[in-house]
């Protein structure tokens, strides 16, 4: 999986992207967030307030129940504030 982070999610984690092998038992966006948060440190901070984290899979907005697959590009970011 290719993971991308934007805005304060990126700042807290300390990187804008990384490649991660999908862990066993991680089949949804929500499960991926739980696994990332469990890494602690900046990841813990970034996902502490999950109500304010949004996700996209392959560049489309998705909800927490959306499946994740090995080849997906998965992005995490705050609610958007463009326009």
């Amino acid at each position: 999986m290719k993971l991308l982070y934007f805005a304060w999610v990126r700042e807290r984690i300390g990187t804008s992207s990384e490649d991660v092998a999908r862990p066993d038992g991680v089949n949804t966006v929500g499960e991926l967030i739980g696994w990332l948060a469990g890494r602690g440190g900046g990841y813990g901070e970034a996902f502490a307030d999950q109500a304010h984290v949004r996700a996209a899979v392959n560049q489309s907005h998705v909800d927490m129940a959306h499946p994740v697959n090995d080849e997906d590009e998965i992005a995490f970011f705050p609610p958007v504030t463009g326009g």
Partner: protein
Amino acid sequence: MIRVQEQDFDLGTELKAMSAGNTSIGGLCSFVGLVRDMAGNADIGAMTLEHYPGMTERALEEIEAEAMARWPLEATLIIHRYGRLEPGDQIVLVAAASAHREAAFEACHYLIDFLKTRAPFWKLEDTADGPKWVDARASDDAATARWAVKSGGE
């Protein structure tokens, strides 16, 4: 047409290009968003716009296609900038041209409402306490939600 760019755009040139040579257009509605100084907060000035290259273009194309499907439009345009922006700078331009003025107005309004809640941009504002990420506004979600119940006609 959609464009995501760091450089500024010329409003008159962009709008004229939309209607040039198309005499089916009876009305052209446009909206420009500008960086404003917060009243009473002289310490808030410039901002930096971050975005998600690739997804941004996809999101804007989808919003444009939805507007095209919903109203009888002759042309649409979305230009969104990223990077460093100062007060008074243009951030975004959305425009819709149609034979009919109601369609032009509603489609233009729809474009900016959906762009605000779906296009992956994030504003980092300069403040006296340092840079601060702008919070999303509930009123923007409400502005998007109303299109689900509004009739799409003229």
